[in-house]
């Protein structure tokens, strides 16, 4: 009987000790799984017509993340050019400014990193960005127009200054 009681006490202690550390570890595992399952999601995941080659990408905040990394891959003829080829952003904020993109289609994905340097969540659906710059002919025409306006203003100021000097001398 004593042995049976002792066995039950040991069993109960083991059970309680499992309870004592088990639930929190299990909870955190569950939390991580839920973060990973929900993943990181972009506020806007489709950018159709970026004509200046720059944009801002935003995503949801991951509570335990201390850093986010934004990677980009360029697609050539329906093939992803490289696996997580370029890290476009490393920073603590869930927002990245990306610039200097040439014409093409890009896939952006984000990893959320914790203070131990581990990836705790990633994007499930990448953001797709289509970049098509303004026509060069159009840009050069406007730049030429700007040059003409600039030269005309300078000519008027120069002529005016000379005339004013002449009036003063007279």
């Amino acid at each position, binding site marked *: 009987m004593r042995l049976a009681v002792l066995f039950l006490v040991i069993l109960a202690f083991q059970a309680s000790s499992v309870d004592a550390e088990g639930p929190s570890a299990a909870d955190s595992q569950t939390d991580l799984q839920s973060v990973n399952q929900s993943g990181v999601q972009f506020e806007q995941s489709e950018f159709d017509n970026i*004509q*200046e*080659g*720059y944009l*801002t990408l935003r995503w949801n905040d991951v509570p335990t993340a*201390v*850093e*986010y*990394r934004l990677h980009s891959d360029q697609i050539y003829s329906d093939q992803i050019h490289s696996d997580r080829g*370029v890290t*476009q*952003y*490393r*920073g*603590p*904020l869930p*927002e*990245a*400014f990306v*610039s*200097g*993109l*040439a014409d093409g289609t890009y896939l952006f994905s984000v*990893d959320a*990193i914790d*203070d*131990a*340097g*581990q*990836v*705790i969540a990633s994007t499930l659906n990448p953001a797709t960005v289509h970049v098509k*710059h*303004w*026509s*060069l002919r*159009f*840009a*050069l025409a*406007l*730049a030429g*127009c*700007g*040059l*003409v*306006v*600039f030269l*005309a*203003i*300078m000519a*008027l*100021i*120069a*002529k*005016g*200054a000379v*005339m*004013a000097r002449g009036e*003063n001398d007279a």
Partner: protein
Amino acid sequence: MNTCEVSPLLAQGTILSPTAGYLMLAIFSVLWIALGIWWGRRAQSYDGFAVAGRNVGLALATATAVATWITSNTTMLAPQFALQLGIWGALAYSTASFGLFAFAPMSGRIRQLMPKGYTAVEFVRRRYGRIGSIPFLLISLFYAMTWLISMAMAGGKLLNVLSGIPYEVGMSVVVGVCVLYTLFGGMYAVIGTDFIQSIIILIGLVVVAIAVLLHVDIAEVHHRLETERPMLLSVLFPAALMALFNNMLFGFGEIFHSNVWWSRAFAMREGVGPKAYALGGLLWLPVPIVAGFLGLAAPALGIGISQPDTAGPLVAATLLGTGGALLVFVVVFCSLASSIDSLLAATSDLLVNDVVERSVRRPLSDQDKRKLSMYCIIALGGVAWAVAWPNIGTLATVLFFAGPLVGSCIWPIVGGLYLKTPGPVAAGSAMIIGSALGLVAYFAIGWFVASLVGAAVSGIVFAVVTLASPNQFDFSLLSEPSDRIGSLDESNTGMS
């Protein structure tokens, strides 16, 4: 699960501690207010308060031109331009110095034509009557407010990025300090503090530039940009090509029309303006190129940029550590203060002389004007503070919205200063049509063409209407005493 090393730059959050930030803020706030009161002792008359007695010499005049034009936009937007538009972006920003070069001969002409003048709107009203002055006044007020608000926002953002001081606190302190010392000293305080601020800014920028060049491998920056952000190095970057002359014309429009620059032209001793503005342009020219390089270096240094207008200070302060961050903090605070005080003083002149005095329809006494100026400075500061509080939009979007409006003022100002033939209809229609089509371009294409379209359309309209109905303006009317303005306005509108 992947593991990787966390960037050390990111773990530390802000670069200065909030305590250091508050300490610096307190020291410089007390310094500017004390200097404002000190210099303001000379501002006994309204002429002293508004145009510093019209006797500012070359050193102070050059310093105030440089300090006013090195705004937070220079330290924040130039790196943003470079980060958005690459090499062309940095060069495009530096073309704003051409505005100072072009304004140099104009400032001499302004001083000569209006020896007792106070504001740019006063010139337009006398030159073109109400048809020209109403759109010009609206554009001037809109631009002054957007500039003021963008400065206030920049103050809050920068102090937050550098030291973690909450945006609302930093923005409120910057605006409050500038309001206080401008209130006490008027243009004397503005030009006096500008002198010290310009010296601090230039020394600070030289130190930052040398230190950054020592820390950064330019070949590495080039390589990273070439592989990761190729368009930033491209000579044929379409948006950047469009932005090149757009920014230059925006700078022309800002300087030619803004009372910030006209009030300085009135304040400078005769013959000083042309030299001071040309020297100021020369000193300013390299600043955006240095600041722009910080933006280009960010990707190569692995510094993540979330908001492009904070790239420059963030890169400089991150590279140079605590000492660098303190330096950037001081430079930024000086550049903000030197622009906000100028705007407060110049815009209050405009409100007193061109809005209040016109609405009461009688000349105001010096004492009344002085008192009204102080009320206007407080009101302007209050409005800027209230609009900047929600922190909506980037600096560029706030400021560049005014681009087409100021671009459309270039031709009426230049033509009005030098030619007899342009009349009120030419000036008014050029400003209205230029602004309207410039705004259409702003929304249909982008901010990087709005000023260009505004200036080009305004120029065409101005030329066509002037050729179709030429006037013969008598420039001597511009130097008439101010108490005859009322009668001048009416006769001027229909002048031919």
